């Protein structure tokens, strides 16, 4: 296959909480469930730790989409902090829209430690959705993004 015929492979940054969704990822692994290799995970202690800056940083760094995942509402290891993540999620979606980024590039996924299968299938689904959206067209590339591209061009 030549380079140009290769279909678009999105890169996605995923945030997981330590107690449910990271363990769901572990479980998907232990059970050898297959999913698309496009998501790179970052472990936080809780989805409540998710600072919106992280999401914007991920987009600015060239990610095509961001996945936020945590315990199901009501199951938070820290009682109710995932509700904070939920609120921030809706806020971030709005901000992204205002910035001209498709809100479909941000996904929230509740996954308990037992839901490896759901975690895996949802990732594959999300990757397909993002693939359909195409590469992220960041209106004004941030500094961090532009640097390597510039260098590549001049190289």
């Amino acid at each position: 296959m030549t380079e140009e015929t290769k279909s678009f492979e999105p890169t996605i940054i995923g945030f997981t909480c330590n107690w449910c969704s990271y363990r769901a990822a572990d479980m998907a692994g232990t059970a050898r469930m297959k999913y698309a290799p496009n998501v790179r995970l970052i472990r936080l202690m809780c989805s409540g730790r998710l600072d919106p800056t992280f999401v914007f940083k991920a987009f600015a760094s060239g990610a095509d989409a961001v996945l936020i995942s945590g315990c199901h509402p009501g199951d938070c290891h820290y009682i109710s902090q995932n509700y904070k993540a939920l609120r921030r999620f809706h806020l971030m979606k709005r901000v992204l829209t205002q910035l001209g980024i498709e809100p479909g590039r941000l996904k929230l996924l509740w996954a308990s430690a037992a839901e490896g299968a759901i975690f895996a299938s949802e990732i594959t689904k999300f990757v397909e959705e993002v693939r359909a959206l195409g590469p992220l067209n960041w209106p004004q590339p941030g500094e961090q993004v532009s640097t390597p591209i510039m260098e590549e061009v001049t190289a």
Partner: protein
Amino acid sequence: MEKKEKIGVYVCHCGTNIAGVVNVGEVSTWAAENLKDQGVVVSRDYKFMCSSLGQELIQKDIKEYGLTRVVVAACSPHLHEATFRNACKGADLNPYLCELVSIREQASWVHTDKVAATEKSKALISGGVSRVVYNEPLEPLYVPIHPATLVVGGGISGIQAALEIADAGYRVYLVEREPSIGGHMAQFDKTFPTLDCSACILTPRMVQVGSHPNITLLTYSEIEKVEGYVGNFTVSIRKRARSVDEATCTGCGICWEKCPKKVVDNVFEAGMGNRKAIYVPFPQAVPKYPVIDRENCTFYIKGTCKACEKFCPTEAINFAQEDEIINVEVGNVILATGYDPFDARRITQYGYGRLANVFTSLEFERLSNAAGPTGGNIVLRDGKTVPKVVGIVHCVGSRDKNYNEYCSAICCMQSLKFAHLVHERTGAEIYNFYIDIRAPGKGYEEFYHRLLDEGTHFVRGKVAEISDAVRLPGEEGKLIIQVEDTLTGNQLRVPVDMAILSAGLEPRRDAKAVAKQFGISCSADGWLIERHPKLDPVATVTEGIYIAGCVQGPKDIPASVAQGAAAAARILGKIMQKEIALEPIRASIKEEQCSGCRICNNVCPFNAILFHEDKMVSEVNPALCQGCGTCVAACPAGAISGTGFSNQQILSQIEGLMLLNIKSHKETVPA
């Protein structure tokens, strides 16, 4: 970066677990070449990084290269983070300067495309390297462990756990919802496969619990609230009003003899027998004090009667008694809340509740119990007719996606036990309808052979329906069990006098609520989740909370006892250590940056943030902080930092994952 870190990268093969999919050699070489600017001075791959040789390799490098940071690309940190941190500690490197990157659970095991998995592993390592630069040396927090233990649930598993800990000399609070301990085992007549009498082996243990100086037994009680963390839980227990003063009651039994109100006993007798409104569930109950069932007691309904009070020789009846809230301090908790039997009514085609002579397994246990409502006579619902043909249906509510997908593990053996008891006591002809016979315990297969020898019929087929629809001669007045004998391919109509539904086990109705109360979680089918399915079956992801018995999944008596003892042993080990090291993942507030807006005060679920009115700044109490980081994310002034998960660490990790730290990268820029 002010100071250049020296980083070592270690890529594990995990045999072929990782190396079979990820090209580990390529990854390691790539890291050495491309992450040089980040400070990587050495990068190696090795067959088993977690082996002692692998660990020594890291330790040697730390010394030789003077490494200041270590990144290990191997399995999930939930498995081996501690291993590699300890290895670093052994080489005098602060353990928190070691970062584990999961390329097994997150790459080799979940991807089939080898190139993609290799590329992803590179990115994950790059992220780990970028992050580890900002890791800070941390010291664990040590907290003392309170030597008392809370055991929730007084079935055989909880009893075993309580006795083990109490015998070792430590205080146990044993909380049971019902008026007596004993659990389901107290309802059984015989236990498989040895057929020893259930009560004979259980009651001595119950008595021991009741009289043990180190056990505080709280029956007819429930957990109200749990606060704190490992080593230091505060538990509120609601001790429901028994209406009987335990200090004066002698358990003489006159009150329930004299009580005029009969109540169908749906709990202990499974609806097969009666009790009084004031009652002990069964004669050997521990404690011996009765309770008044206020919903059924004539006095509570009509305001008159008081027969029990009149006849009580010690004036122990106290109608005005109120619920009591008891607060206890414990260091650890064992949840042994057991199971509920599957409600056979849900499978309407089996006719339970509609067809009189369809019985559930629990009903049959009471029917066959010498101390039960029929004195151990196996008879039909009319109370007198001895059945001539009995059908026992396996897998009721189990191995069925319409109900519970899992195998309940005990029903085969329970059914064989029933078949034996029916054979022994009635001589009836017995049909067992099974999908597969599962007899994987000590002496279990032999018991199956014994049943075969007794002439019990075994029909391989899941019962389709039980009805009273007579069609053929000989079916009049019988129950018809319709089934395919899958070994012959024939459709059978087996007329029986009695059908016994061997109901499976289900999580307690309130298992989810209990799990939530104690900060742990349930699997999709509702059983509480253990920390590791093989290697850590009684611990949970929450330090200090242990599980034992059927609360973790269906199991038989020996396994429940073993888990009770195992959980006790784990806790005794912790108590002996006197203190426990906690992850130093905590939030802290930089006073000079705090604007005093108090947003963080409200987001903290543990009330760990105090506000100093005088200085108009907030402060985190590290003993209460659990490290979730929500306040860090919420602080508009950026004044709060979270150790172990600082903004710098995560932002840098994002750059690393996107390979922005590499000058020559091509992959992430779409053509």
